């Protein structure tokens, strides 16, 4: 067991810090301190700065225009960005293209797919959404009803996807579709890239309970995709789709620990402002959250160490999700309790629509920020594999308990 960074890695951290200092404006106080219009101006500008500095697409190999960084260096970049309160993925579709689809194309894509999509994803010309969930395919991930049938050099797609984050700003969607209607479940699926800007595709925004239209549903009505835009081969959709989810893990955990710490410092300020600095019923709950944030850091170190030694993250990532998702709810519930009667009305400017902690710079006394954070914390135990699915995974894959009986599979 050795969790020390090498001398080169520590030097790299110093380098990242000084690069960020030189790139960010002199009066920078964190993304959370920007107003809505300032953010809209900052995002594309910052994206360019990150691209120039090699910190954008940090893990992509240099041949694809990425930073060519090791997983530990990527983690350092993410941590330092969180410390600086600067976004890692400045525009809403970046995370899907850079973190998820990019690595998937590098692994499973054809040379033509890589050559076409990777540079355009990097430049922002192509903006991705993720098309997995459907009305009938939630936890039952592969109960996919969207069908694609082959017609000459194209696939004709019919069906519906739902819960696409940043779907309203995307112009391409990577999907899991059924290419073999004779087969049910995980077989007969393909991973298909579909352009959104066409007559057969309709995107409709879904307003979330925080009032933001960050989600969408996508309807395919004889939509057209190119035959050679299947990734990883026809019928391999489930394999590619699962592999893509695996690319999500590893580099971001320590950054989350950093932003969790920053959030707790902000919550401490709110407690002081509320005159409750000596109220142990509040301060001890905050202390528990601090221990939780430390545990998030330790769990992240385990994952990072495993990924850096090329181990495939396994079911233990379910433990991290189990812990982190519930923590988001605990800490934001505490904030509402600190606000007390003030939690019943939104006062203060709109905040960043973030699923994790609000970035550095947010006013600690902004009731809007804390209330929105508490609302954003609710779906965390639902999306990306619900808490109940994580518990099944832990029970079945880590404890070896009997698999859940799946009557619908038998009936299909």
């Amino acid at each position, binding site marked *: 067991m050795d*969790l020390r960074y090498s001398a080169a890695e520590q030097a790299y951290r110093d380098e990242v810090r000084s690069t960020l200092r030189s790139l960010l404006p002199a009066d920078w106080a964190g993304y959370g301190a920007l107003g809505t219009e300032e953010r809209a101006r900052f995002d594309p500008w910052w994206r360019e700065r990150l691209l120039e500095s090699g910190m954008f697409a940090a893990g992509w190999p240099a041949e694809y225009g990425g930073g060519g960084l090791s997983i530990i260096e990527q983690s350092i970049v993410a941590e330092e960005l969180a410390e600086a309160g600067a976004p890692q993925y400045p525009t809403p579709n970046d995370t899907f293209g850079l973190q998820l689809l990019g690595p998937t194309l590098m692994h499973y894509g054809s040379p033509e797919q890589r050559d076409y999509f990777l540079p355009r994803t990097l430049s922002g010309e192509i903006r991705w959404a993720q098309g997995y969930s459907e009305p009938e395919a939630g936890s039952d991930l592969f109960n996919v009803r969207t069908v694609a049938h082959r017609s000459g050099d194209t696939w004709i797609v019919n069906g519906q996807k739902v819960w696409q984050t940043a779907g309203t700003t995307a112009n391409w969607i990577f999907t899991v579709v059924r290419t073999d209607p004779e087969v049910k479940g995980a077989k007969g699926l393909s991973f298909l890239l579909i352009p959104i800007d066409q007559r057969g595709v309709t995107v409709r925004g879904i307003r979330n309970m925080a009032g933001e239209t960050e989600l969408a549903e996508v309807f395919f009505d004889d939509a057209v995709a190119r035959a050679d835009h299947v990734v990883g081969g026809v019928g391999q959709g489930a394999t590619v789709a699962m592999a893509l989810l695996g690319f999500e893990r590893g580099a971001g955990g320590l950054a989350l620990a950093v932003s969790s710490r920053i959030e707790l410092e902000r919550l401490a300020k709110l407690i002081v402002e509320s005159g409750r*600095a000596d109220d142990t019923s509040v301060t001890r709950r905050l202390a528990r959250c601090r221990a939780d944030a430390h545990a998030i850091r330790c769990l992240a170190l385990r994952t990072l160490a495993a990924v850096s030694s090329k181990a495939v993250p396994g079911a233990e990532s*379910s433990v991290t999700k189990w812990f982190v998702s519930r923590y988001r709810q605990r800490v934001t519930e505490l904030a509402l309790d600190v606000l007390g009667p003030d939690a019943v009305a939104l006062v203060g400017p709109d905040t960043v629509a973030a699923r994790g902690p609000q970035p550095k710079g947010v006013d600690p006394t902004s009731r809007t920020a804390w209330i929105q954070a508490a609302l954003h914390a609710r779906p965390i135990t639902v999306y990306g594999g619900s808490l109940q699915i994580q518990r*099944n995974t832990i029970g079945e894959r*880590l404890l070896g308990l009997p698999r859940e009986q799946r009557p619908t599979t038998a009936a299909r």
Partner: protein
Amino acid sequence: MRFELDADQADLAALARRFFTDVLADDRAAILAGRPGQEPKIWARLATEAGFPAIAVPAEHDGADGTWLDLALVLEAAGQAVSSQPLLATAGAAVAVLRAGGPGAHPALTEIAAGERTATWVDAARPADGLTASARDGGWRVTGQRAHVLHGDSVDLLLVAARTADGLGLFTVERGSASVTSETPLDPARSLGTVVLDGTPATSVATDLDEAALVRAQAITRILLAAEQVGVGQGVLDLAVEHALTRQQFGRPIGGFQAVKHLLADAYADVDSARVVARYAAWAVSTPAAAVDRLEDPVELAALTCAHVSPAIERAAAAALQVLGGVGYAWEHPAHLYYKRALSSARLLGPADEHLDRLAAGLGLGPARR
């Protein structure tokens, strides 16, 4: 960067698991006979065959010169068996406080390393508070009392940090010279003593003890206890999982029912996250240049660790009892030993609120802030 154990560490952990499994039947018999930790054959094997008491003793005292992490791994295995042996007290608390005494030659360390004597630190929770020592007739006498001293009624040697006219001193007291009463412990596998010192003859180990070093030794003891707690959680989880796989109701193993599976999944996640946190802490105090984050202060690290591990292991043990059903409530089933150990360990070295107040103080809040 590597979170997994090295080959040597993994070997040591496996050796310790084998050892505590080997001696389990004899140890349990002693516990059920009301003589926890007092089976001399087991300690003799533990000391001479396995060499566990010597792990964290420096080479200059004929110790194994290992790390706190090495000892933590062995304590995990001890916890997994709810061992009644005074290993945490002797190889952990006593060695930590002796090492805090400075670089001088301490015969006690050599005796511990050789497995000749068992020892405990009378107050790993609140060092020196209310304990005094004075020089008399060319020797030292200590006065004060402590309840709930870990194995205080059965070890050979008591370590006492006490105030002197000049400052803070560390002393050894022969248990036979002190007035010690056996308590009836909640945890039948861990004996406790009430120690009364009243001008009791003592041998000086150090006379100019640094208060900070004592507090650090206390933090290390807490981190080692956390490792043992993780083992306790793993042990009781194993019992519950085995039960869930074999116990059939409604024609199938109860572990296939989601209600039961999810209870166990929560317990697994509690034990797993506790292990990650406890191992991190043991590694960090074993690695002086652990520049991995701002946690240079072992006291803060111990507070973070205890605040996470204690409730997690209590929850896991309670969930395991629920899964075991009526069987887990029976005296003859070992589950109660685990549950009681979990309850008792969470409270043994100071109240949870103390840890929390320290952590709140780090954010500028609460009664412990300056």
